Structures are given as C-alpha cells and as structure tokens.
C-alpha cells in the first residue's frame, strides 16, 4: 500500500459508516449514521466528495438504486466497501492501536 492510500480521519469514519450500514448505505443514511455514532455533522457535499475520492482509490464502489417518493422521485446512490477498502481500514486500525499501546490510561480507554 502506497503513501497515497493512507486513510484520513474523515475517510475512516465514512468507510466505517458504509461498512456498518451494509446494503442500506446511501448518502443520507451514511450522513445520519456519522451524526448519531460519531456526533459529527457533515454536509452532504463533503460526504460525497470524500466518497468520490475513496471510489477513485478503489476502496468503495457505487450504484444507483430505485427512486422513492420521499426523495421527490429521485434515485438513491448506494455505496459498498471493497476488499481494498477493508484492508486500508485494517491497516489504519493497526497503526492507531500500535501508537496508542501503553497510553490507555491517558486516553481513558477510548479505543
């Protein structure tokens, strides 16, 4: 994995949200999941630009779903984490846990 493939903090959060939601991962749901779990408000534009970047790196794939009435007849854009995305997440997690080792008392068991 090259240096360009390291995940940023927001990229990690977005990937984890998509992974958690599974087959129901589309823009609005991902945004709500991030808000509920991470307590972080993000604009839908910031979310899509991040997902675009992750898609260019091959970490996620997307496809258009069916239109629904509560969306004014517009289709949902679904996202799925690919194997390379999962690998990148594992690498980030390993790096973080390695850096945190021995500092649990300072961080209050945050991980």
């Amino acid at each position, binding site marked *: 994995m090259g240096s360009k493939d390291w995940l940023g903090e927001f990229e990690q959060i977005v990937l984890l949200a998509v992974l958690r939601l599974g087959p129901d991962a*589309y*823009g*609005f749901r991902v*945004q709500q999941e991030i808000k509920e779990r991470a307590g972080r408000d993000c*604009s*839908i*534009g*910031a979310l*899509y*630009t991040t997902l*675009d970047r992750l898609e260019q790196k091959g970490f996620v794939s997307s496809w*258009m779903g069916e*239109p*629904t009435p*509560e*969306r*004014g007849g*517009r*289709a*949902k*854009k679904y996202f799925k984490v690919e194997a390379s995305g999962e690998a990148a997440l594992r690498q980030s997690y390993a790096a973080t846990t390695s850096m945190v080792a021995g500092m649990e008392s300072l961080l209050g068991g945050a991980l």
Partner: protein
Amino acid sequence: MSELKDEHQVEWLESYEHLYVLQHHQDQDPYERLCEPAGVGANEQQWHNQVQLNFRFNEDLAEKVAEVNHQIQLSLTSTAEEMETFKLGLRALNLPGQWIRTSVKTAEVADTPPRTAKFLLLLIPKKNREGILGDLEEEYRTILLPEYGLRLARFYYWWHSLLTGASFLLAGLQSLSRSFKRN
C-alpha cells in the same frame, strides 16, 4: 351558524363535499348521518339537500367546518409570509426582477424544497447530482420540515445546498491545483 339563503348554502356545501366524505371514513359519529353512502350513490341532489338540512341543526359540524376553514386561512397566511421573506432575501441578493418573479412562482408549493436552491445544485457533477438532490430532499421532508417548520426548513435547505456547492467547488479547485503542480 347563521341562516343563509338556500341557494348560497348549497353551493357552499358542495365545495366542502370532499370534507364530508372524508369525515365519513374517519369518524362515524356524530357526522355519519350526513354522509350516507346510499344517499351519495342513489341521488346526489337528494343527498346534498339532506346534508344542507342536517347542517343547519348541527352546531358541532358548523364549528368543525369553521375550524378547518380557520386552519386553511392560517396555513395560507403562513405561506404568504414565507414567500414575502423569500422575496426580500432575493432582493437583498440584487437579482433581476424577472428572475425574482420566476423564483417566487416556483416556491409556491410548501411541502417541496425551494426549487431555486435546486438550480444551485445543478453546478455539482452529473454523476452525483441525482443522489445528492434526493438525499437533500429526503432530509428536508423527513427531518427539517417536521422538526423546524416550513420557514427554518427552507432556510436549512438553502444552507445545505450552499455547503454542498461549496464542497464540490473546493474539491474542484484542489484537483486543479494538483494538476498545475504536476505540470
């Protein structure tokens, strides 16, 4: 309810026909006798006459109709106020008069997001446009409108549309900057 001339009252009652039918389905009592299904099917004029007759002696129904009428008036006033605010906002942006009139016309439907804000979203890349417009509309209908009411919901929709446009503009500039650096 004050006494009205028969002709006038029948005309007025006809305009509320849908309300009586709705009432019949939702609440059998005390308005059931006003909405006999057989009466509607068999002889419409007879049914109207019966409704008219019953209506005169039914203070509850008169109050109910007056209340509904009041609610409709309130809703219309609220929408008018909303449009006035919207017009002021557009004027503050110093946009051409014709554009303002078109924009106000398109903002008339209360339960749909402001259409002029949607035009702003035409600036975002086509591959994401459908998904983003749908997500913003879903947010508007399921969260913003029920939680904040019409005025704030519209404000937030505008704000989120601007943020979305800004995010894509920033991403575009970053991409441009990277390509310049490479060259």
